């Protein structure tokens, strides 16, 4: 891993020295030995601050929309999940692919539970790949949707009970939204007071409405990076909502996985005359 880390620093240094990019987004050390933080490297000297270790858990792609980024081309370190997040943001037209330089880093899983069901450990898109590709792991559809299937089996009352307990914890911090690469609106619906989509008060109903709306807004484009759940300070099982939508899309309209370079077009932006119809 240290080989790759030094290669990463070399690459970043070269990119910055040659002026290919104005900033490299990567991971840097913190005062905790088992935590890293996203850093914006803007000078060749600072490239030494980049690290690559088991604690590089934080998703980086969303940071390209951060206003700390200088103007000009950006370089981003991408693992499999980050690369899919980049695709997500590029497909959503929030950034142009040609304005990005992607440093691919094959990843054998980090210090995060989501990595156990990761199907794309190698970046799906990159400009340079550091280190050889790592073997992918097989994850069955059953494993992918295990949590969802378990909840689907409950009665409506039990389901409600479960979710109500979960949502009652929500503190509307919107960390899930801020970390999510699919949440890339300029102004989130939840911040719009005048229309009145969403109340600011913290009660079970508002919490639940926020949770479901968020799920519906991103579920059809979710790349399953797990950032939402990772950053939630209250430990809500947020992925179980978005994956429910993904599972239904898979069941209703065929195989669907987002953020791959050859992904199907946006599923709610198209239709088929022969789509299943329960509303006759």
């Amino acid at each position, binding site marked *: 891993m240290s080989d790759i880390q030094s290669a990463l620093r070399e690459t970043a240094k070269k990119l910055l020295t040659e002026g290919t990019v104005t900033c490299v987004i990567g991971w840097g050390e913190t005062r905790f030995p088992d935590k890293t933080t996203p850093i914006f490297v803007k000078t060749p000297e600072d490239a030494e601050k980049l690290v690559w270790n088991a604690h590089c858990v934080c998703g980086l792609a969303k940071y390209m929309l951060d206003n700390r980024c200088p103007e000009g081309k950006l370089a981003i370190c991408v693992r499999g999940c980050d690369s899919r997040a980049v695709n997500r943001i590029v497909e959503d037209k929030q950034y142009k692919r040609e304005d990005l330089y992607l440093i691919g880093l094959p990843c054998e899983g980090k210090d995060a539970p989501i990595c156990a069901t990761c199907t794309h450990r190698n970046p799906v898109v990159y400009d340079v790949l550091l280190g050889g590709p790592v073997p992918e792991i097989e994850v069955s559809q059953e494993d992918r949707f295990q949590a969802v299937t378990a909840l689907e089996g409950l009665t409506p009352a039990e*389901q409600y009970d479960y*979710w109500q307990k979960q949502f009652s914890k929500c503190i509307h911090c919107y960390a899930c939204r801020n970390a999510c690469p699919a949440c890339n609106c300029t102004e989130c619906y939840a911040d719009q007071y005048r229309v009145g989509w969403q109340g600011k008060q913290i009660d079970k109903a508002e919490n639940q409405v926020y949770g479901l709306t968020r799920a519906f807004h991103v579920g*059809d484009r979710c790349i399953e990076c797990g950032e939402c759940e990772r950053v939630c300070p209250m430990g809500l099982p947020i992925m179980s*909502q978005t994956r429910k939508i993904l599972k239904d899309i898979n069941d209703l309209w065929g195989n669907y996985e987002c953020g791959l370079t050859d992904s199907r077009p946006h599923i*709610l932006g198209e239709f088929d005359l022969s*789509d299943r119809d329960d509303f006759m």
Partner: protein
Amino acid sequence: MSVKADPNWEPKILAFCCNWCTYTGADLAGLNRMKYPANVRVVRLPCSSRVNPQFILRAFQKGCDGVMVCGCHPGDCHYATGNYFTRRRFMLMKRLLEYNGIDPQRFQARWISGSEAAKFRDTVTRVAGEIKALGPNTRFQEKWYEEGGEAQ
């Protein structure tokens, strides 16, 4: 007072109807003097594809006991393809709602054409009956009518 105990309780059902098919069908039911329970309030919209799934959440949250989305049959949309998008959106939304504990009867989508007055009558009669049997909706609401519960 617990609403559940009120013997005169009547469910409130909100129906989003497209102007060209279902709203016309509902008007036709009136012209034919068909009778159905007075539980349904219709919101008139140009097309079923105008219905943002968030409206459904809002209706439940504010105290509706049931919500319906009605539009033209696929292929008959006044706007050619609008209801195909409706179909995809609400196939997903319905499943998501049920997953979160909303009884399947409380959210229903139906295609009702401008000539299907009888289908409109039958559908709202059936839905009203089903929801009456379920009792008031307490889920997703700011008000909590559960036994001994306080309004939050």
